[in-house]
């Protein structure tokens, strides 16, 4: 199963789509997922990341079938 990559809020609008798909590779990290899919956009230090709907750091490993999400600082409440 490929990795499902999702973008939310202002990040989704900047990228121009809500999802991407990526084939897993051994030892792939969250930061590398971003760099592969967004080669022209450095990962902003403010950008938050989640794997399988839990917050992670960008060095977290990503496995086949995982759902990875990138989004800006949250502004609820």
């Amino acid at each position, binding site marked *: 199963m490929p990795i499902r990559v*999702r973008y*939310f*809020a*202002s990040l989704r*609008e900047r990228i121009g789509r809500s999802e991407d798909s990526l084939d897993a590779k051994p030892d792939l990290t969250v930061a590398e997922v971003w760099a592969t899919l967004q080669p022209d956009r450095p990962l902003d230090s403010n950008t938050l990341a*989640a794997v399988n*709907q*839990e*917050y992670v750091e960008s060095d977290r490993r990503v496995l086949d079938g995982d759902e990875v*999400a990138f*989004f*800006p*600082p*949250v*502004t*609820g*409440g």
Partner: protein
Amino acid sequence: MHIEVCEHPFNPWERLASFESEKGPRPGGFGATATFVGTMRDFNEGDDVVSLTLEHYPGMTERQLERIVSEVDDRDGLLDVLVLHRVGQVVPGDPIVLVAVWSAHRAAAFTACRQIMEALKSSAPFWKKEELKDGQRWVAQNTPG
């Protein structure tokens, strides 16, 4: 405990009353209820705001709210918790969030209500986009308090 992301407007006072009467903590078992209601303003950063659109991450948002409640310092002191949060289009005066906490004594209720609200503001995946008179903008970050 009840956590809900609401796609339609809600009345926090009616929801509080129905929660207490239908499930909620046992009548007589609690001595304190602390509630926080966050309501949409018609101004932000010096500009008039016409409406807000609230986006969330279905699934993660609910999980994160559950985690926030489970990580309250005095979790054992809480008898019940109700958290409601709007998504979709909101206009000034509409409630956005309700946090209600029941406990035996006031300290646990006051503290938990504040802790849940602050954690929700800093870590629950919701995003606000403001509709101004002359355009739209995403809210970049929450104010500290």
